């Protein structure tokens, strides 16, 4: 499995959608469309008038579909340099430089019927959302469970779409872990991630997960992977993507 790296291309922002109080989606039209796999990211490069550049990686939230549109869901980081630009300055019609697809590891396993457990926190759901959307569109018979931790129900990125998928997609189980407000659904949790929670969500799959993908902050990923290992999932079957912090 290897990523194809193409050069920088300039892409127009065609739509901006507020997703949560801190997260907006940016829909970009690729001028040189590329094929990508669910879970991959792009590098985005901003250039100042003096030639100064700032580059960041953002996971692709949209599912591979052959479209020339990709969705990036960007969380505004208070001390950030690039995310405040997207939230406060960027407008529809602006041209943004990006390249991709990048990343050849944190990918939807695919071509298997083995159950997949996805665990994310906050905007860490973005690459997992690409996988769930791909799973829905491709109709691959892969059972999927998503455990998603967020502060409140308003902070759940793609909440309405996930709730609808839970109703419409037979092999998809959704569990929210809300850390700062009580959960109202019986199937959700009102606490931080812990091993019993991961075991509970894994048990909603028809068989033990053979692939676990975790995305979030480093402490969250550590907690999630420790819990998955405790369930007996092999270390080599657990893939992680960390914000770095």
């Amino acid at each position, binding site marked *: *499995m*290897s*990523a*194809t*790296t193409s*050069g920088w291309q*300039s892409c127009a922002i065609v739509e901006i959608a507020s997703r949560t109080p801190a997260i907006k989606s940016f829909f970009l039209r690729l001028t040189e469309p590329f094929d990508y796999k669910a879970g991959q990211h792009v*590098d985005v*490069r*901003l*250039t*100042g*008038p*003096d030639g*100064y*550049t*700032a*580059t*960041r*990686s953002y996971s692709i939230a949209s599912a591979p579909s052959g479209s020339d549109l990709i969705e990036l869901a960007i969380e505004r980081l208070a001390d950030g*340099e690039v995310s405040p*630009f997207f939230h406060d*300055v*960027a407008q529809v019609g*602006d*041209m*943004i*430089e990006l390249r991709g697809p*990048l*990343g*050849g*590891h*944190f990918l939807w396993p695919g071509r298997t019927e083995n159950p997949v457990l996805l665990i994310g926190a906050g905007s860490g759901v973005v690459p997992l959302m690409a996988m769930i959307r791909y799973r829905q569109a491709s109709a691959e018979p892969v059972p999927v469970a998503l455990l998603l931790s967020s502060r409140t129900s308003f902070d759940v990125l793609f909440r309405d779409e996930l709730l609808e998928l839970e109703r419409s997609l037979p092999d998809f189980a959704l569990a929210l872990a809300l850390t700062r407000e009580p959960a109202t659904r019986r199937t959700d949790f009102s606490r931080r991630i812990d091993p019993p929670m991961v075991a509970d969500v894994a048990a909603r799959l028809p068989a033990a997960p053979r692939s676990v993908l975790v995305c979030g902050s*480093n402490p969250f990923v*550590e907690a999630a*992977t*420790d819990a*998955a*290992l405790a369930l007996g999932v092999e*270390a*080599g079957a*657990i*893939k*992680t*993507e*960390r*914000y*770095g*912090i």
Partner: protein
Amino acid sequence: MVTRGFTGRPSGSELSERIPPGQHLVENFPVLTAGPTPRIEPADWTFTLKVGPRPVKIWNWSEFNALPRTRMTRDIHCVTSWSKLNTAWEGVTIDDILADAGMSAPTPFALAHCYDGYSTNVPLADLAAGKAMVALNYEGQPLPRDHGGPARLLVPHLYFWKSAKWVNGLQFTERDEAGFWELRGYHIYGDPWREQRYRND
């Protein structure tokens, strides 16, 4: 192409010449790992020097810790675009590892191997002459587990994915053989000053 409305963050001019293109400074020490963090007790730790498939010497933790120690303070640069200045390390240089094995490097290429199955390739020229070490301490303390403890490779002048965490061996190879990320689209060499992030950079 200038991005409309982007001015960027002002940076101190005396520091900016230490920051490679496309990088930004951080004060914290981000953790990026492709899988679970391995748990390796020093009592179980070994380091194996190989030439091709053949092991030529294996050190246990106490034997390895008896080797000469070197300190180096360096700027480090992660391909995900953060750079951190003045990081202080202590460990055993690759030169001292080879000397203890009573050998000189048999080939111009090497692969570092790790407890989690990770690997990365580094040419001999970037490992020898005091350029690289197996680091055991960071900022005067035993290396934390999530930063690769008990031991990681440190090749500070290349992108930091080359500084393999949880290292357990160095293998000399006849050819320059791609490691984990190099097989997954990343650059075979990884010089931050030439922005060698991905395969065709």
